[in-house]
């Protein structure tokens, strides 16, 4: 079965065997992209071994080793920052990919470097355009063979399973791809064995379970430099609605139990999750959304922006994940950095409504201003809010 994708204009025969694969996403229709544009391979071959012999990244063309060839291009995912099309650069420089924060923290803790400023990443990377005060211009590759401190060596051996270039730990709870697909291909709960039937899907509606494949399955202990799986999860807990409360994000035990009905991406912006294009030394340099971002304070309402430009990135994001019909003229919340919280829109009457990006569930966002809240204006960290606002209280 021959297909001539509009984008390449070159016939390919992949669908002879793969006609049953579902479309990977509405943004990548097969009649436009075909298969070879993203996956590589020998487009005219009808022998499986030959056809697959030059595929990029095996089942996963978004692996960082091949992502530029697979997903890059100025009209695709390595365009300019001004057009919000620098996805590959952003994710490659993000702390999730470089693991620079963890590496710097451990090396600093055990005397291998004098401060916590990152010098090393999982791979070497440069950033020619630093835009933030904490941004770094480059990282060298972390090479455990050059380390002398035993804990740092143990860290390298036991604790490098969560960055986006790493293969995950074995087991369904950790099942994810590498590269872009680590987050954008929902794999949580799959029996993720090598050569097993795979999943052909990309989405921006990322459920919390996908984040959990790294963020909530246990903790790395600095005492023994080992990963310790959570022991409070019973059996295979993911994908069970009644488990959501128990299964929700538990960063080193500080579980908020406040916004547990939401998904991580409902609050955390694309800049936080996928990087802002700069190389950072610590996640706190990039993670900044707080309770007040959406709820405001006693003195201030949350920041908003009325969409006037039909090219506003908020409209593009809402188009890709159409859980709400966002339009020019709508007022949405924005963060202090100006990032669009495109799923939180002001409705007639003034109330704000959040729509779950992965669930489509609708919530009215309560505002602190004008409420009976007794917060102190200089106490805006979540721990203060959770003194009252937690599921137990």
């Amino acid at each position: 079965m021959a297909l001539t994708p509009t984008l390449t204009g070159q016939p390919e025969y992949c669908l002879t065997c793969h006609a049953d694969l579902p479309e990977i996403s509405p943004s990548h229709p097969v009649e436009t992209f075909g298969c070879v544009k993203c996956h590589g391979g020998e487009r005219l071959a009808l022998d499986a071994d030959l056809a697959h012999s030059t595929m990029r990244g095996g089942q996963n063309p978004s692996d960082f080793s091949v992502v530029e060839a697979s997903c890059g291009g100025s009209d695709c995912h390595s365009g300019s920052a001004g057009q919000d099309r620098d996805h590959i650069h952003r994710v490659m420089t993000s702390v999730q990919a470089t693991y620079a924060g963890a590496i710097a923290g451990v090396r600093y803790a055990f005397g291998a470097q004098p401060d916590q400023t990152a010098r090393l990443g999982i791979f070497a990377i440069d950033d020619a355009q630093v835009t933030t005060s904490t941004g770094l211009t480059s990282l060298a590759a972390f090479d455990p063979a050059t380390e002398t401190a035993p804990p740092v060596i143990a860290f390298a051996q036991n604790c490098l399973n969560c960055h986006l270039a790493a293969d995950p730990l074995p087991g369904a709870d950790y099942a994810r791809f590498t590269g872009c697909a680590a987050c954008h291909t929902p794999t949580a709960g799959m029996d993720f064995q090598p050569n097993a039937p795979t999943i052909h899907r990309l989405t921006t509606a990322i459920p919390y379970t996908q984040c959990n494949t790294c963020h909530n399955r246990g903790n790395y202990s600095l005492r023994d430099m080992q990963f310790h799986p959570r022991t409070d999860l019973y059996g295979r807990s993911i994908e069970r609605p009644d488990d959501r409360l128990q299964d929700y994000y538990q960063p080193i035990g500080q579980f908020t139990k406040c916004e547990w009905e939401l998904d991580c991406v409902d609050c955390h912006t694309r800049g936080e999750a996928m990087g802002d294009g700069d190389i950072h030394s610590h996640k706190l340099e990039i993670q900044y959304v707080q309770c007040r971002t959406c709820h405001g304070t006693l003195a201030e309402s949350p920041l908003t922006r009325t969409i006037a430009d039909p090219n506003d990135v908020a409209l593009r994001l809402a188009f890709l994940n159409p859980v709400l019909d966002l339009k020019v003229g709508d007022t949405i919340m924005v963060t202090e950095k100006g990032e669009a919280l495109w799923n939180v829109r002001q409705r007639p009457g003034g109330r704000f409504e959040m729509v779950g990006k992965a669930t489509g569930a609708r919530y009215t966002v309560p505002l602190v201003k004008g409420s009976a809240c007794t917060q102190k204006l200089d106490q805006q960290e979540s721990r203060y809010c959770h003194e009252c606002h937690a599921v137990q209280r």
Partner: protein
Amino acid sequence: MPSNADMPNGDRLSRRDFLSLTTRGLLSLSGLLGLGGLIRFLSYRPDPAPPAQFDLGLAANYPPGSRTELADARALLIHTPNGFVAYSTICPHLGCRVQPADDGFKCPCHGSRFDRQGAVLNGPAARPLRILRVEEQADGHLILHTD
């Protein structure tokens, strides 16, 4: 069974002849296989390029004011008061097929929108929809050129 020593000289196949015959046979076989491959290679015909012009039939089939989607040609033919106009329905961003919308066209892949004249209303497309040449022949047929 007679041994080689018992066989008359005229019937004996010497080792030299046997090896020579075998070598020639193998060379002939490989030559034939190679020739077969060469013939197959030379007779390969790639898939024909997609057509660059389409006979749309009689112009009278497209009344004034009509907007006709031409799926094969990936085009939209419009009969305006000034004559026939055709727009490519291939999005200039990445090549998805745009769809008619109330205010013009929209791309279902990445959300680009175009007005009724094909101009960009919003990206990511940076260029307008391509206007295609429509030729009305003496016999009344419309020919759409997509190249």
